[in-house]
C-alpha cells in the first residue's frame, strides 16, 4: 500500500525508470502497463516540444546577435559610401554651376560632350543614391529589430515597427504581393519593440506563404478603447476550420519542413499574450484568405 502511494507520487517517467532499474539485471520480459506507456509517450512529446521551443529561442537569440553584428559591420562602410554619394552630387552641382557660368569661355560651355558627361554622371549617381538608401534603410531596420538595449518596455509608434518589419520581409513580398496600408490615427503604445517586431515579421511571412502566386496583404491599425488593434489580412488559401484551433499549438504546421517547424505562431501568441497582455485572434475562410488581429493595450 505504502509502495502504491509512493508510485503514485512519481511521474510516469520516474515510474518507468524505477521499473527498468528493478529489472535491469534480469533476463525476463518486463510487463509494462499499457497506460504507463501512453503516459510516458505523452510526456515525451511534451518534453520534445519544450526542447524544440528552447532550441528555437536559443537560435533566435543567436540569430539576433548575428544580425546585430552584421548590421554593425555593414553600417560603417555604407555610411562612408552614402556620404560620398551625397558629396559626389554636391560636387556635380558645383561643376554644373561652373559650366553654366558667364565667366568661363564660350567654347568650353558649348562643349556638348562635357555637359553630357556631367549629366550621365549625375544620373548614375542618383541611381547609386537610391541603392544606398535601400541598404541604409535595411541596416537601420535590422539594427532596430536586433539590438539588445531595446529588450525593454518603451513607448513606440506601432507604424514604425510595421515599416521596419516590411523592410525586413521585402525580399519575400516584392513583385508578388501588393501591400495595402490602412494606418489609422493611433497613439504611441508601450511595448517591447524588438519582440513585437518579430511578431509582425512572422505575420507578414505567414501571410506571404499562404498566398500562391500574386496576392494582397493589407495592414490595418486603429484605436479601440484602451487598446490598439493591428489587423493583417491576406488573400491566401485560408485555413480549414479543423486547423484553426490547433494553429497556436507548438509544433503544429502544415508547411513543408523548409518553411517552418510550427513554432512561429506559438511564439507570437506568447509574445502578445504573456509579454504584452494582449490578444491574438484569427478569422479565416478557405480559398478567400485569413485575418490575424493583434490587440495590444496602449499602457502596460
Amino acid at each position, binding site marked *: 500500500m505504502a509502495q502504491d502511494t509512493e508510485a503514485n507520487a512519481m511521474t510516469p517517467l520516474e515510474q518507468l525508470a524505477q521499473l527498468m532499474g528493478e529489472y535491469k539485471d534480469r533476463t525476463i520480459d518486463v510487463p509494462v502497463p499499457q497506460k504507463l506507456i501512453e503516459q510516458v509517450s505523452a510526456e515525451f512529446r511534451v518534453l520534445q516540444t519544450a526542447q524544440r521551443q528552447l532550441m528555437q529561442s536559443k537560435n533566435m537569440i543567436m540569430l539576433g546577435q548575428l544580425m546585430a553584428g552584421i548590421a554593425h559591420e555593414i553600417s560603417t562602410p*555604407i555610411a562612408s559610401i552614402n*556620404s*560620398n554619394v551625397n558629396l559626389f552630387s554636391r560636387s556635380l552641382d558645383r561643376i554644373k554651376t561652373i559650366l553654366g557660368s558667364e565667366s568661363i569661355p564660350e567654347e568650353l560651355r558649348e562643349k556638348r560632350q562635357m555637359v553630357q558627361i556631367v549629366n550621365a554622371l549625375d544620373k548614375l549617381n542618383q541611381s547609386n543614391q537610391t541603392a544606398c538608401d535601400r541598404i541604409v534603410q535595411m541596416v537601420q531596420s535590422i539594427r532596430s529589430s536586433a539590438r539588445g538595449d531595446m529588450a525593454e518596455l518603451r513607448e513606440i509608434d506601432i507604424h514604425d515597427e510595421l515599416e521596419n518589419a516590411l523592410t525586413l520581409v521585402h525580399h519575400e513580398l516584392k513583385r508578388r504581393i501588393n501591400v495595402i496600408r490602412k494606418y489609422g490615427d493611433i497613439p504611441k503604445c508601450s511595448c517591447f519593440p524588438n519582440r513585437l517586431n518579430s511578431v509582425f515579421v512572422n505575420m507578414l511571412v505567414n501571410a506571404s506563404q499562404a498566398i500562391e502566386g500574386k496576392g494582397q496583404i493589407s495592414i490595418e491599425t486603429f484605436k479601440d478603447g484602451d487598446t490598439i488593434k493591428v489587423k493583417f489580412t491576406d488573400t491566401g488559401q485560408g485555413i480549414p476550420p479543423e486547423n484553426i484551433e490547433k494553429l497556436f499549438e507548438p509544433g503544429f504546421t502544415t508547411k513543408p519542413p523548409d518553411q517552418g517547424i510550427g513554432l512561429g505562431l506559438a511564439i507570437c501568441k506568447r509574445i502578445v499574450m504573456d509579454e504584452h497582455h494582449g490578444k491574438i485572434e484569427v478569422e479565416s475562410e478557405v480559398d478567400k484568405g485569413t485575418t490575424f488581429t493583434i490587440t495590444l493595450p496602449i499602457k502596460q
Partner: protein
Amino acid sequence: MKDESEYNVLLLDDDPEVIAAISSLLALETKHNVLAFTSASEAFEAIETQEIDLAIVDFLMPGAMDGIEFLIALKKRQPYSIRMILTGYADKVNAIKAINEVGLYKYLEKPWDNEELLQIIREGLERRALLRRLTDQLGGSIPL
C-alpha cells in the same frame, strides 16, 4: 568670432573610409582645418600641442585608448572644445557614460546625413565661439 579657416576640427575613427568621407565633406563645404586620425593615441599627442575647437570621435576603437577615454582626456585639457561621438554601434551603456563623463555635445549614429552633420558642426562651433566670448568678457573661466 573666428574665421572659418581658423577652426580646428579633429576627426578620430579607426575606419579610414569614414575619415576620407567626412574630411572631403568638410573640404568641399567649409574652410575648417581638419586634423584626422585613425588611432586615439595619435590624436592624444595632437591635443597636447594644438587647440581643438570641435572633435568628432568614434568610441569603439582598437588600441590602448578608446574614443570615450580620448574625449575624457580632451575635456580635461580643453574643456571648451565641442565633443561629439559618431558611432555605428548604438550602445546605451556607452552612450550614457559618454554623456555623463565626456560632457557630450551630440551623439550621432552612422550612417549620418551630410546636411545634418554640417548643421550640427555649424551650431557646435557657434556655441564654441559664444563660450570663448563669455570667457574673455568674464576674464577667466566659466563653469561648464
